[in-house]
């Protein structure tokens, strides 16, 4: 049995990779799927262009995986393409070096004129000077993770959520068993190999087997706008910096990001000063951005790894590292996989899987690059005649029924209810009524309070214009109409 810690893209990717090689796996996860960084990114399917100059290795991996994911995860990828846009503020000498780096890394690129660019992305500033097309895309992270879970379980693996790693027991012959804890108590699990894919918590997990990893955590803030403001990804043609990526993500648009060292693995909600600063950085690309309908702001924590000290986390590689702890004096059979990007999760999993397979003495190759993931549910099923429970995201009984026994929070990420412009104001009580068939009133109330608080924190991070008005409506409905006594 291989135990994988963390049910983000990396951990589920490793479990999927090992399952396909015929190994038995159990994933343990402290929260729900995508509890950490995998649920908190801008959704960009990198072409690698962003890293071509500074991080060519990461760039090559990005374009390779970009192509693979389009094949194996069709349905969870939007192949929208992206532009690198030159503004009057772009450094003059950057473009040339970037183009030769693109050639060296093999990332397709095509020059586009100012006119074509402005026709493709009318929201751009009139002063933009042209740019380049690259094969950027969009990843729908949550559905992709649920597909991974489904694939793992179909191969006999298990994903145990709300379960923490408490203790690791290893001897001279390597790791033997792990103790895990959940609401139902603690237990020992036999463990032939252990994979630490805990993202920002990888450092904490590594303390349990006495080979502490020097993580460099960095927080990135993003703003979600409530409308799909453009049809393609837009990047700033400049060295990676704050406020330089805009991603059309299904029905919304995500603007990012920032880079600030942090000690906290848990992503703390953005401060208003952070989001205002980030918003202002968009002006030279999108002059009207301040008037776009903001939805919420959120923050993700990058689990960067760099043993040698570097001054600025922007300069820490976006490449990933697979660490075989036996080689550094740690226990045998323990592997950590750290750093990397969402888009390279499959490759990270493959490399970690290679180490685990070789340790366990098997020779099965990785099959993930050739194996399409199963769809989440049969498309043929017809919706019944019933009212929407969530009008913004068009979720109804039919959607809830696919996840029987789910909590309100689980239904949120699986059906997308409460994610739209009203942020749950008009639908949480309806879904709570359905939840009452599988939970008692106190549990429903606690889940509702947690969901409301989570939605409110995100709204408060982007509290201006119509979103501020929506927030005021939400406050009034909760207190006056529903009689909630909110803190």
């Amino acid at each position, binding site marked *: 049995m291989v135990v994988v810690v963390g049910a983000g893209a990396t951990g589920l990717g490793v479990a999927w990779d090992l399952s396909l090689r015929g190994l038995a796996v159990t994933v343990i996860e402290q929260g729900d799927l995508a509890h950490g960084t995998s649920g908190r990114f801008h959704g960009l399917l990198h072409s690698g262009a962003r890293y071509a100059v500074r991080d060519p290795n990461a760039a090559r991996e990005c374009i390779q995986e970009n192509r693979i994911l389009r094949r194996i995860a069709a349905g969870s990828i939007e192949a929208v393409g992206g532009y690198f846009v030159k503004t009057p503020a772009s450094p003059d000498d950057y473009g040339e070096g970037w183009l030769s780096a693109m050639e060296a890394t093999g990332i397709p690129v095509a020059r586009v004129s100012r006119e074509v660019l402005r026709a493709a992305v009318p929201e751009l500033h009139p002063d933009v000077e042209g740019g380049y097309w690259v094969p950027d895309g969009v990843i729908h992270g949550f559905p992709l993770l649920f597909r991974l879970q489904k694939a793992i379980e179909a191969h006999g693996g298990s994903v145990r959520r709300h379960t923490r790693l408490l203790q690791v027991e290893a001897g001279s012959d390597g790791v033997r068993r792990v103790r895990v804890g959940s609401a139902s108590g603690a237990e020992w699990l036999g463990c032939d190999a252990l994979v630490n894919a805990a993202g920002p918590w990888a450092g904490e997990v590594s303390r349990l087997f006495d080979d502490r990893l020097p993580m460099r955590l960095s927080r990135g803030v993003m703003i979600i706008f409530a409308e799909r403001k453009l049809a393609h990804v837009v990047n700033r043609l400049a060295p990676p910096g704050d406020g330089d990526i805009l991603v059309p993500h299904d029905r919304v648009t995500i603007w990012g990001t920032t880079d600030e060292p942090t000690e906290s693995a848990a992503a703390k909600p953005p401060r208003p000063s952070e989001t205002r600063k980030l918003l202002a950085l968009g002006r030279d690309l999108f002059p009207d951005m301040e008037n776009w309908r903001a939805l919420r702001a959120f923050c993700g924590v990058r689990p960067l790894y760099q043993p040698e000290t570097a001054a600025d986390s922007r300069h820490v590689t976006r490449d990933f590292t697979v660490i075989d702890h036996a080689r550094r004096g740690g226990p045998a059979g323990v592997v950590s996989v750290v750093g990397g990007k969402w888009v390279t999760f499959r490759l990270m999993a493959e490399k970690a899987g290679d180490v685990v397979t070789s340790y366990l003495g098997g020779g099965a190759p990785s099959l993930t690059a050739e194996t399409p993931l199963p769809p989440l549910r049969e498309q043929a099923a017809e919706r019944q005649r019933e*009212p*929407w429970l969530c009008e913004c995201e068009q979720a109804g009984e039919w959607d809830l029924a696919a996840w029987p026994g789910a909590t309100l929070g689980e239904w949120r990420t699986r059906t997308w209810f409460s994610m739209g412009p009203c942020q749950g104001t008009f639908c949480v*009580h309806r879904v*709570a009524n359905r939840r*009452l068939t599988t939970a008692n*009133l106190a549990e429903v109330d606690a889940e509702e309070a947690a969901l409301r608080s989570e939605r409110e924190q995100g709204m408060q991070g982007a509290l201006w*214009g119509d979103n*501020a008005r929506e927030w005021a409506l939400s*406050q009034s409905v909760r207190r006056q109409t529903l009689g909630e006594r909110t803190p």
Partner: protein
Amino acid sequence: MRLVVVGQGPAGMLTADWACRLGAEVTVVAAADGSLGLWSGAWDFRNFTDSGEVIRDPWQWWELHGREHGVGWTREHWAHWWTRWRRTWEAAGIPLAGGEELPSHNRFTPTAVGRMVPVFVCPAWQWAVDEPEPVIWVGMEGLADAPIELAGARFRALTGMAASEVCLPKPDAWAPHWSSLAWAVYVESGEGRRWLSEALTRALGGYAGSSPVLMPQVLGEDGCETLIGELEAALERPVREYPLLPPALGGIRIRDRWKRALKRRGVSSITGTVDAVLKDGVHLRASGASLPADAVVLATGGLLGGGLWLSAAGELLNTATGQTVVWSGRMDELAVAGIDTDGTGYRAVGRVVGGFDSDRHGDSGAVNLYTVASAIEALFGKQTAMEGWGTERGGNDGP
């Protein structure tokens, strides 16, 4: 006096109504329908203390704590204006629950999710009681906004009283897009009345006793008193509504009846956005025209009403004047930020007046009443405002 009232939420309509009765020539300018249609139409006096405890006697609370909140009115002064307000609504054809001239204390009214919240005055179609009693909580299949299982469970847990949940099967005419408004139109139609009466009679056949039947607030757009009367006769039980989320039929009925009453009395109404308050009137954005006035009252609401606008840079703007409003910049103080009466240009009424936190305290009715009556006293002089109702047009229904 030519008076321009900007905004047609409860404070704007009350100002227009009273100023008209006192002889002013009133024009209401509003960019939208006003906020009345968002809420059920219950008017709160004061429901919760600063620390969140329920208040049963709001009269006493204002007497003891009003000055801390900048309100120095005596009990008699409150009673005068509450009476005036009550008669104003009754004159507009809005029936109020309870027979007494003025309630002596808060009662309780249910929310759609089964909480019992304090209320001072509410429309007669809404259930409001001194003490909770066993009820029959009715919902309809296909009306997601009436979560009766949740409501029943919570009602039992909070009050210790029995509650039965009854779900009516949806009528043949039902379609998935039906909102509460569509339900109300159907229920008021000939077919809908038959359906409702039969479905309720069948569903309640097995229930002994005379517990009140609580219906979701979809009993007709305007003819709800007739409908309730018919149902009560058929069921031999009290029938009342519990309010749903916005858009709320309770507030919509009040808004429509009140608007008609104002129109009958000669209040003019203009759809438009005011973007400047001038010395002698207001400037309208779309037409570029100015509307002359001797006095201007801003009833534009706060952030929700649109009277305040929070910019991306964190600046709070008074949308009717374009002026920046000073506030601390702290999110937790946003709810109490507002614009005050300008010494020369305008008077502000309703929630737009800063300092009150009505969502938290449950005092929105009192805030409307206090700010509107204060503006009326300032505009007409206290004596005329209190006693000069004989000069009003369209019939004397003042106290």
